[in-house]
């Protein structure tokens, strides 16, 4: 499973600027005094639709500036309050286009996607309406600049677009980005091509070679997902596939799974304890099913972790524990010694869980 780091607009635009890609003049607004006016004040929240929600406001005077800062900093958009605001010059917009670079998984290549209808209405574009082209080598940029200019109907912008795509490509690769989306790509009334907004997602797996990565945006959590706050059965498994399969089997047995949790390969006392603490927050919780199939993990280590965690949490609900794989025998002995029954299969663990729910 890929962990993506979703950047806020101002963070993404800093990266664009470092890559010599044109962005609007901007500043992080000081509450007392604007650097320039008129300006557009933009809420920095990790979600779309902020324009329609009132998170983007044009200001012309100092009073408007101060009032907009006050309003937007307190405006919650889809559950997010901005920690930062961005002030930008107001562009004189002629056209709003869409341009993105992303990793196309089936072809294992980097793909350029374009649409001549950009801006806030992009969601209305049908999938078929996108212009798409894979980048297979450095010689492709000339051809892409030409075809993009034809597609957007901007015959005098061939070289500008070629240069832009080439810079975006380098930006994507050198920053280990999974997605770089410019929407809108603004053509100003005086013919400049400017990145009006930018959405960028980085591959967290590459963090080891980017010691400078320090972003306000938080990592999206994919290992723990609540499915039903009122669920009666919590699930703990290792490996995303097995964790999903555990949820599937619990639900198909007529029980209500509260969550999906993949504790990964390094299941240890701390991670099991942390998992149990989160699961205890479900008010209807009756039983926790633990389904670990050890390949690279070792069952005895998981067993020790379960025992230690249980000893620290006297109010823990009953456990239906199924372990299998590497060092199973040692684990079975440990659990049995501590009075925890061990189930031979997931089907048996579900049967045991059913008995706890009356």
């Amino acid at each position, binding site marked *: 499973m890929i962990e993506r780091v979703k950047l806020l607009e101002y963070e993404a635009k800093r990266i664009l600027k470092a890559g010599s890609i044109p962005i609007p003049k901007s500043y992080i607004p000081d509450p007392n005094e604007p650097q320039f006016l008129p300006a557009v004040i933009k809420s920095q929240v990790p979600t779309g639709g902020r324009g329609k929600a009132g998170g983007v406001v044009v200001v012309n005077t100092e009073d408007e500036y101060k009032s907009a800062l006050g309003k937007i900093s307190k405006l919650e958009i889809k559950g997010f309050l901005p920690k930062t605001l961005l002030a930008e010059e107001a562009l004189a917009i002629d056209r709003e286009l869409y341009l993105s670079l992303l*990793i196309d998984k089936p072809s294992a290549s980097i793909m350029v996607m374009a649409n001549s209808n950009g801006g806030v209405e*992009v969601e209305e574009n049908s999938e078929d309406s996108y212009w798409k082209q894979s980048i297979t080598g450095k010689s492709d940029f000339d051809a892409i600049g030409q075809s993009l200019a034809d597609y957007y109907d901007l015959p005098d912008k061939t070289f500008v677009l070629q240069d832009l795509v080439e810079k975006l490509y380098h930006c994507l690769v050198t920053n280990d980005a999974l997605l770089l989306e410019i929407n809108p790509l603004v053509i100003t009334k005086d013919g400049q091509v400017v990145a009006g907004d930018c959405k960028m997602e980085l591959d967290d797996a590459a963090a*080891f*070679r980017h010691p400078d990565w320090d972003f306000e945006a938080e990592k999206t959590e994919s290992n723990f997902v609540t499915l039903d706050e009122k669920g009666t059965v919590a699930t703990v498994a290792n490996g995303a596939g097995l964790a999903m*399969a555990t*949820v599937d089997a619990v639900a198909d047995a007529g029980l209500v799974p509260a969550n999906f949790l993949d504790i990964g390969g390094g299941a240890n006392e701390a991670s099991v304890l942390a998992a149990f603490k989160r699961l205890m927050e479900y008010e209807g919780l009756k039983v926790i099913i633990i389904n670990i199939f050890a390949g690279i993990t070792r069952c005895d280590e998981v067993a020790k972790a379960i025992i230690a965690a249980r000893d620290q949490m006297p109010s823990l609900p009953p456990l239906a524990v199924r372990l299998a794989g590497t060092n199973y025998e040692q684990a079975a002995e440990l659990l049995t010694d501590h009075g925890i029954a061990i189930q031979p299969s997931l089907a048996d663990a579900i049967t045991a869980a059913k008995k706890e729910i009356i």
Partner: protein
Amino acid sequence: MNESLLSGGNVIVQGITGSHGAFHTRAMVAAGTNIVAGTSPGKAGQDIDGIPVYNSIADIQADMRVDTTVIFVPAAHAKGAIIEAINAQVPLIVCITEGIPIHDMLQIKQRLKKSGSRLIGPNCPGILMPGKTKLGIIPANLSLPGTVGIVSRSGTLTYEAMASLTQRGIGQKYVIGIGGDPINGTSFTDCLELFQNDPDVDRIILIGEIGGTAEYDAADYIATHVTKPVYAYITGHYAPEGVQLGHAGAILHTLHESANAKTAYLQSSGAHTATNLVSLIDFVN
């Protein structure tokens, strides 16, 4: 891909002195795998239970032929390890390492295209031929020699399917985990082709996941090329809508990638399907 390639021949382990590498080298030897050497830069001259450690694959090749490598090196060094194996023209490369950056995989795929090497994985448990050889980390003690071919994107779910069959006395000829990463070396279709062409295999189990479109390619191949019974399960029927890739993602990643949609398509392509693994295994029985 054929049985002789997957049989391993002379097998080496890259990253043999690490804790996972050493632990699983011993488990592979116990399962009958012919491990002749390992690499660990700067540790030439050491040994793991008598298996000699070299600095590089080229150094091993000065002494003996290498048919297969199993890679356990950490993600930060995995690209280098895979490229080293490709350059050394190792026919079969099994990469267990998880968390390889996607841009590294793009480069590796380019190199693979121009090579004669086959990559299984990364982020996979490898291949087990019960009673014969184990290339990776699939727990051999829960397998049983037989005639079923299993292919799966998920590591632990592969073991689950295998162990469930074993519990019912149904043996396996091949157990293959192709890995959970969006870009990998060997596809479902490659494995289906192997199973269809091997006369020893009489039933096929395919385990997919939500996300991506690999299962659609597999279903098309089943409809057009596979005459043996296929039992398919896609995990994640109760998963909430996936992580969105911005607008571009919302366009490319639709309901098409859900477990229900994939299951329906596999069924229409001639596979037997179930909505959970327990039911699927009952079906095979």
